[in-house]
């Protein structure tokens, strides 16, 4: 992909990794656009290596029990639920 040309098959492969279905037209259109965008990203090769050690400090707090969402509220936006659980598609 990095040599400029991006094929529809490559776009569909990445879409598979990202779990997004695409129509034929979308895959074709994205292939052309991704070539442009990735070519622009190539410029980052010119950026010098930079020292970047972030100053991080651990911030601790007491582990305190407090009220959270009740089960009914947490399930309120789910398209499907059953016996107080989210209901999803079969895993395999």
């Amino acid at each position: 992909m990095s040599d400029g040309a991006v094929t529809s098959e490559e776009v569909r492969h990445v879409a598979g990794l990202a779990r997004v279905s695409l129509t034929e037209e979308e895959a074709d259109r994205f292939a052309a656009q991704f070539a442009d965008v990735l070519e622009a990203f190539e410029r980052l090769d010119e950026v010098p290596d930079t020292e970047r050690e972030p100053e991080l400090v651990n911030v601790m707090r007491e582990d305190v029990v407090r009220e959270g969402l009740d089960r009914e509220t947490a399930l309120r936006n789910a398209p499907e639920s059953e016996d107080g659980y989210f209901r999803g598609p079969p895993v395999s």
Partner: protein
Amino acid sequence: MNELNAFVTRETVDPGEEGALSGATVAVKDNISTRNLRTTCGSAMLAEYVPPYDATVVERLLGAGATVVGKTNMDEFGMGTTTETSAFGPTRNPADPDRVPGGSSGGSAAAVAAGEADLALGSDTGGSIRCPAAFCGVVGIKPTYGLVSRYGLVAYANSLEQIGPFAPTVAEAAELLDVIAGVDERDATTRAPRREGESYAAAASGDVEGLSIGVPAELVEGADERVIETFETALSELEAEGASIEEVSLDSLSYAVEAYYVIAMSEASSNLARFDGVRYGPATESDGNWNEAFAAVREAGFGEEVKRRILLGTYALSAGYHEKYYEKAQDARAWIAEDFDSALSEVDVLASPTMPVLPPRLGESLEDPLRMYLIDANTVPVNLANLPAISVPAGEAEGLPVGLQLIGPAFGEETIIRAASALA
């Protein structure tokens, strides 16, 4: 004024208490959670999503006496510069209804510009407050990363984004910032502001005597000449009031757009994995297994720009490309932060046109994504460096608003508020 399409949902939430914002109406961007009030992020994926809790900023608004008047339209999940990628149709610019209001917080800026709300909240990941503020002729502030709680903000690229205010004037925007700023135990990235005066509003004195303003050449070159002319007129106004102006140069800035999009898209590809159609999202008919159902609901629920960014982010993080794109983008981010640090040790604030172009016509920007990304050149460096910036009306060119951006050091909100208040 429904023809502006500034709101996705118009519903009033009355304040619980009296306070600094009693009597003020506030519009809230539709990616900020409001309890029992639909929060769509401008996406079909969340068209029916009703949050069970308020974002911290909304709690603070209501606690300060403000009345929420609705949820404003936006580019889907904040991904856009024009508010045209919304699943609820584009918002129009009150200054010229044939033009875009900017984005992604276009609804918030348009609502304030048209007087449909006194104030508004937006979020800014790469310019999403400052761009629409500039295009609509209002004031918008992107706070220092960590000044305002992101609890309840639906994440797009969490290392870059902040919630911030819109208002007709700098003083009013600063008043709203006073209400929403401050540490929140539910957002571990928040930090206590180091404030010199009593409040941000008190900093809006209009006094720029002795203020030094640096103008980065990289953020002026290549801008529309009409924009540059308006920007320079506003600068001479500041100079006439006692500020000094000098040109500065930050070499790293020419890599900011590329670095920003690599980082933002990478974070988006991870953040938006939560939209699986199980805990929220539209019901689908897919009989397939988990992966097939997941892919089908994301095909149905996401618009084209969101898919584009998720895919490009997935690509940038994938094996073999991670070092090439993501690591180099992080190098650029660190370099940009260093460049800003050293520039801001020489001058008090940096100034540039907020946007290098006048507001585009509706429909003009959608065909070529890269071209749309490139118009974010002046706003994205600030997010990469975690700095505060404000966009203030600089004047008009051909009847269209032009914004001037002022960038300050980390937690230097008072300085940019003071400088901007000399203009509006």
